[in-house]
């Protein structure tokens, strides 16, 4: 055996390994640097985006979502497969590095990440990664999960590309193992020890009969194959879906930290100078910010976003994933690695359609799911800003936008009628609502917003909320005619100028009212006042107020009379995902004696949008079915016959959907505030028949 070993050394040293690996290293690094320099060009020409703040928070995010792979197990099988591969890669990084360096500098040894234990660990890592690659290839080729499928116009290349990349990694693992199987140990006296039943171990078993002269070329060939495959992957990845291996760390480090917000029109231009900005929003590729382009590079095309997207589920012409993929293809086409750049084409009309851009409900399900924290809402809003700036707005949205401008609400109703919901005969006596006009003061402002103010059905939410505030002894009032629409949807539909006007008006009115805090029953108003407005008193949603009253035992409920009812709570997107209020409404529902509650499969941060409110109620999308109909069917599947929600838009859509789905009489919808109002035990009795939930949802 000793003879064999020395023969290997001699045979090895006679082959030009050092020269060859050195050249592959140099060529590979040069090629990689060139490709990356070219890929960075669009980012350098893009809009500014300040992502260099809060380094500790960002490192935490990296720890959780990159290193910790936090979101992957949300899809169990694929997720765990990825976590395993990722862990394998991390472990193998130092070993791969050594394999590229040691032939050139034989003395080189990785600090810490070398030695016997590391060697054995990585033998297994290489084996596990190899097995995972095989599973992943079989999965893609044989099982073809639906979320990887792309429409025909994208061709088959994408799936071929994925398989090539997976296969290349498998080859890398084989090469690595082959080298390990034929490499000498540290003492140069024996072959290095291998982990039992690992891939290198199997190779060595196979090669045992070979002579030294035969092993040397195998070691040589393995090293060269390893280096070649390594650099092939490094240079090929920036052309396809595996670029995320390089970019994900940066994407996640620079990810958006502020939930519920929308990016300003331009990060580098203060709001009051916006009139000088020639063009709003994204019209051509370079109107995206550099981070958004980085997102396009990072997307792994896994399809989790589209799988969660309500617009996609309803057959609207939007899949978040394709929004990214099309932009990446555009970048690869128009900023090619080997020829001249050719930018400046309008994106909508070439890679995107108008309907695609207007189809998004901004529910945030895609962003909540993306393992790489790719952003979608800001991009959609920026694309809409671009369309609006080019005067390109669907006809059905023009009237509501004009009405918001002239009357402060999308219906074009009179300002002076904004508080008419408080004048309902019996309500007016039982629960007089103050109008805070400067002379009348209160501690708390109830911000009603347009839908609850004007929509006859939703006005019941306003009255229920007012009675709740009264019951817990809140000194509150409303702005009445001087309240305008919060502008939440206006901003998300891209009409920034109108939004700013609405915001400025409301900000002045709210500050003028001199209140200490704000309560709203509309999650969209909550999100706007919290994230889109500046320097207002603290704001809470009515669910949070009631939950606190229940916790502090200031509110009690009478038992639910109807034992047949099974409730399911529908998380409104802007209360749940965008503002993380998941438990308060549930805690309150569970505090009502006798209330039976089930959870829908899609709940909490995976809640399924009702179809979108505000301006979305006016938009006529191309779709195969209504989003709301899908949602009420989910409630039925969960075994519920009453959907409780906490948003006037959700209630509008769900009540409509119950009728459209033909579930009238079998399913009802009720707002959280209405249910609480109906069940709470309070000092003064009241009677307002229209909020009795027995009739709610069937009142046509």
């Amino acid at each position, binding site marked *: 055996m000793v003879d064999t070993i020395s023969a290997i050394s001699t045979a090895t040293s006679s082959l030009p390994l050092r020269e060859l690996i050195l050249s592959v290293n140099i060529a590979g690094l040069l090629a990689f640097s060139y490709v990356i320099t070219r890929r960075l060009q669009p980012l350098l020409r893009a809009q500014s985006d300040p992502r260099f703040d809060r380094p500790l928070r960002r490192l935490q995010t990296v720890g959780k979502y990159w290193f910790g792979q936090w979101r992957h197990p949300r899809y169990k099988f694929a997720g765990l497969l990825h976590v395993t591969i990722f862990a394998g890669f991390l472990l193998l990084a130092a070993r791969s590095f050594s394999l590229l360096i040691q032939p050139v500098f034989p003395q080189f040894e990785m600090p810490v990440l070398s030695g016997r234990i590391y060697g054995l660990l990585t033998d297994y890592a290489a084996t596990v990664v190899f097995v995972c690659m095989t599973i992943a290839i079989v999965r893609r080729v044989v099982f073809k999960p639906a979320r990887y499928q792309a429409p025909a116009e994208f061709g088959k290349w994408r799936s071929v590309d994925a398989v090539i990349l997976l296969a290349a990694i498998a080859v890398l693992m084989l090469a690595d193992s082959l080298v390990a199987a034929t490499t000498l140990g540290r003492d140069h006296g024996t072959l290095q020890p291998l982990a039992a039943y690992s891939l290198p171990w199997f190779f060595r078993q196979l090669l045992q009969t070979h002579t030294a002269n035969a092993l040397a070329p195998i070691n040589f060939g393995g090293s060269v194959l390893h280096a070649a495959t390594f650099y092939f992957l490094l240079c090929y990845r920036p052309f396809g879906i595996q670029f995320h291996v390089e970019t994900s760390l940066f994407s996640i480090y620079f990810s958006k930290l502020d939930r519920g917000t929308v990016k300003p029109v331009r990060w580098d231009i203060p709001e009051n100078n916006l*009139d000088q900005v020639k063009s*709003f929003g994204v019209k051509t590729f370079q109107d995206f910010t550099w981070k958004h382009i980085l997102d396009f590079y990072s997307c792994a095309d896994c399809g989790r976003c589209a799988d969660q997207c309500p617009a996609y589920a309803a057959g609207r012409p939007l899949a978040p994933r394709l929004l990214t993929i099309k932009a990446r293809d555009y970048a690869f086409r128009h900023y090619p690695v080997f020829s001249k750049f050719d930018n400046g084409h309008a994106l909508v009309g070439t890679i995107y359609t108008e309907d695609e851009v207007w189809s998004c409900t901004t529910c945030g399900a895609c962003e909540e799911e993306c393992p790489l924290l790719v952003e979608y809402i800001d991009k959609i809003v920026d694309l809409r800003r671009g369309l609006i700036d080019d005067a390109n707005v669907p*006809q059905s949205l*023009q009237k509501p936008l*004009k009405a918001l*401008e002239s009357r402060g609400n999308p219906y074009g109703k*009179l300002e002076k009628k904004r508080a008419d919901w408080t004048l309902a005969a019996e309500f007016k006596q039982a629960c007089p609502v103050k109008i805070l006009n400067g002379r009348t003061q209160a501690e708390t402002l109830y911000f009603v917003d347009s839908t609850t103010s004007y929509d006859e059905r939703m006005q019941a939410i306003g009255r229920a909320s007012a009675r709740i505030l009264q019951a817990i002894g809140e000194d509150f009032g409303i702005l009445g005619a001087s309240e305008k629409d919060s502008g939440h949807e206006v901003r998300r539909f891209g*009409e920034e*100028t109108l939004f700013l006007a609405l915001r400025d008006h409301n900000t002045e009115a709210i500050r003028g009212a001199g209140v200490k805090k704000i309560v709203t029953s509309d999650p969209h108003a909550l999100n706007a006042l919290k994230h889109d407005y500046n320097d207002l008193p603290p704001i809470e949603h009515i669910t949070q107020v009631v939950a606190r009253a229940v916790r502090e035992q200031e509110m009690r409920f009478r038992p639910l009379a109807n034992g047949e009812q099974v409730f399911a709570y529908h998380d409104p997107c802007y209360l749940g995902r965008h503002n993380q209020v998941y438990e308060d409404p549930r805690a309150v529902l569970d505090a009502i004696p006798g209330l039976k509650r089930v959870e829908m499969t899609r709940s909490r941060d995976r809640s399924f949008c009702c179809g979108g409110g505000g301006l979305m109620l006016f938009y006529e999308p191309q779709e195969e079915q209504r989003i709301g109909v899908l949602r009420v069917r989910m409630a039925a599947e969960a075994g519920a016959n009453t959907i409780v929600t906490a948003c006037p838009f959700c209630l509008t859509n769900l009540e409509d959907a119950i009728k459209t789905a033909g579930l009238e009489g079998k399913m009802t919808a009720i707002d959280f505030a209405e249910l609480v109002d109906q069940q709470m035990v309070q000092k003064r009795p009241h009677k307002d028949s229209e909020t009795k939930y027995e009739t709610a949802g069937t009142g046509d």
Partner: protein
Amino acid sequence: MEILVCVRRVPDTSENEIELDSQGKDIARDELVYSINEPDNYAVEEALQIRDRVGGTVTVATVGGEDDEEVLRRELAMGANRAVLLSDESFAESDGRGIATILKNFVQKEKFDLILTGVQADDGAAQVGGMLAAMLDLPFASLVNSIEVCGQKLKVSREIEGGNKEVNEIDLPCVLSIQTGINEPRYVGMRGIRQVASVPIATLGASELATNSNSVGRNAAKVVRIDYFIPAQGKGAEILRGSREENADKVAELIAARGGLR
């Protein structure tokens, strides 16, 4: 092509609750919000599209006062090249013929190949376009819902009752009244209006337009409004109070009975 579009500012029926004033001869205007008359907006959009296809300019003009500048400003934001306000105390309370006379005088000062008006104003009588054409001795086509430029002629079409389409050829210069639905007017937001805030709007009065005060204004009006009322609600609709299925059957029956289902 040099195109003039005559526009008008009207109370927006979708954003107002129309009530009578104390006199009972007009609507209460204190809290109204106004916008451009809808068919006029389609006319401007059509003019802009023609200009973008064949070149030329688009001028918008209105007869009115300072308040009416807002609709001119809006049409400038849409993309009109020039806006003109025809304003004079003597123009007040002109009837349709008076308005047409003022517009005629303006047109005669300039040179237009094509003059567009909306098919009618929300509160109007659909008469100014025709009268203007007659006064200028120009060919006139009304209710136009598509325009094709063919050299010195236009092919214009209109919808015939029942949904059929008729195409006519008409010589330029001419006057056309434009029907809604001819196109999809572009959006004008606050930003667009702000961007044209400093564009000057020329104001022309009676002397610049050589308008004789006997031919316009209150004194020349031959048609004078003497009453205005909101009709009393009739007995109105029949309310169906059955189940959904019964109601659906009943509705189908009622429609069929009136010849609606074939």
